[in-house]
């Protein structure tokens, strides 16, 4: 059978694909298109039934969409792509290096002699926390996360790295400053404890989500608490990993009593709330038996 491929911009006819069977998968369609136009590697293609429709899954045969010979499908060029892992590694490695660079108090940020000034206990602990956090993220990127998409648009690399690296510089400049004023020991140590709890919580959720999905698949199931007590937060929110993440940064802010760190925490909270609401809605749409009473990110609130 034959299928016509139209572009999503202006519904322009692009290719006619021949020699297809009902069992031909979307992936095979993408491969055919790729053979016809080298620039359009499969990860750059989004195949839809309508111009603004959702992307059809690679693994599905065309028969599951009721496509007969002569049918039309739409192709959207997602633009140059880059691997998710690549982006994550770049955006997380930056903060590690940038923060520790500021820790050494380079003279061009702090003036001569700054490096020889005493470093407060709080500043040292903060540097340790920051490093542990991003080292953990790098570890998770390589060993824990299972990604549903293999790529994202190339521009995201620039956008994401700017966000992380510049914010790191902003926070690091203040916490590592020779005139940085630590809060009380009590405030510092209690917050440090909360930071640790949040880190463990976040890691626990990431591991639980990984185990929810068999390797090599993109299966989606309702996340539930496991034997790990940190995962109990699933009873209250759909995205407890984001909850714990905000917890980490709120704790870091209290630990350093640093307004820039607070701004960083709020920026992250805003973005994660947007993502959490999206994921929460998707879960509810996908699973008719999705637990009521769960919020998206902040228990009882949002």
């Amino acid at each position: 059978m034959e299928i016509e491929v139209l572009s999503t911009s202006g519904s322009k006819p692009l290719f006619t694909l021949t020699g297809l069977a009902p069992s031909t998968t979307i992936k095979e369609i993408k491969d055919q298109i790729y053979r016809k136009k080298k620039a359009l590697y499969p990860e750059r293609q989004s195949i839809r039934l309508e111009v603004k429709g959702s992307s059809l899954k690679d693994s599905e045969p065309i028969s599951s969409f009721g496509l007969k010979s002569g049918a039309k499908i739409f192709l959207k060029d997602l633009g140059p792509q880059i691997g998710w892992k690549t982006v994550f590694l770049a955006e997380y490695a930056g903060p590690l290096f940038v923060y520790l660079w500021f820790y050494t108090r380079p003279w061009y940020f702090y003036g001569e002699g700054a490096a020889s000034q005493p470093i407060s206990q709080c500043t040292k602990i903060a540097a340790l926390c920051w490093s542990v956090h991003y080292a953990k993220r790098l570890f998770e990127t390589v060993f824990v996360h299972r990604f549903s998409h293999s790529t994202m648009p190339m521009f995201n690399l620039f956008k994401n790295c700017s966000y992380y690296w510049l914010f790191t510089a902003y926070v690091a400049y203040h916490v590592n400053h020779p005139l940085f004023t630590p809060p009380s020991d009590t405030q510092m140590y209690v917050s440090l404890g909360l930071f640790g709890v949040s880190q463990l919580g976040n890691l626990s959720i990431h591991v639980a989500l990984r185990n929810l999905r068999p390797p090599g698949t993109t299966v989606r199931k309702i996340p539930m608490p496991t034997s790990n007590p940190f995962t109990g937060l699933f009873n209250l929110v759909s995205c407890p990993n984001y909850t714990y993440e905000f917890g980490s940064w709120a704790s870091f802010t209290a630990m350093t009593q640093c307004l820039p760190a607070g701004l960083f925490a709020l920026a992250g909270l805003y973005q994660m709330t947007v993502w959490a609401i999206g994921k929460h809605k998707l879960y509810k749409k996908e699973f008719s038996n999705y637990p009521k009473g769960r919020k998206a990110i902040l228990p009882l609130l949002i």
Partner: protein
Amino acid sequence: MANKTASKSKKEVGFLGKTYLLAYNGAQVAGWSYILYLMGQYYTADPKPQQSLWEIVRTALIIFQNAAVLEVFHAIFGLVSSNAMVTLFQVASRVMVVCGVLIGVEGASDSQGLHFLLFAWTVTEIIRYSFYAMGILGVSIYPIVWCRYTFFIALYPIGVTGELLCLWAASQLVGASKQWTLTFPNSWNATFNYQYFLVIVMALYVPLFPQMYLHMFGQRKKVLGGGASKKKN
């Protein structure tokens, strides 16, 4: 009671809303025309006036430019079809220049940029608000439509030049006076450098101005189209 915002699912503005918008746009046309009139007086005055151009237009400019903040709410509440974010950026940049630079920084209004931006803003706003008023009344006067979608080609760059000159002048003055600048140590471990802030605002023009400029060209193509097909009176 007057017909409130219509029960149709499409955003239809009722009589009360339209009256308000007409009054708002009318007031803005009047206000900016007045500012232009003051400018005309200043430039043609013989001998040269005692007061500076800034001192002459200052009050009217503060009133009518800051009133534009209302437009963000018009967009949010659906009173107009404009995009709230775009409106926010446009109004924010104007308010930043008037409040953060011209009023906020002593001496910034001496910049030559003031002449550029006043000229660009007054002409643009008189046309723009007239265009909106027309839309509410349901009339289309082609010369106004044409001006709205053509004058920007020159006025946008002229206005931006004026704004950047004033921002720059302010940044130099603030660099010397350390105005609105917070340094270490303090209990919130925060710093704020108003000079850096002004420079960052200037840097934002680099990505944002081309986008807005090209957006207007796109609008021009859509509205004025090929030319002949859109001529209406």
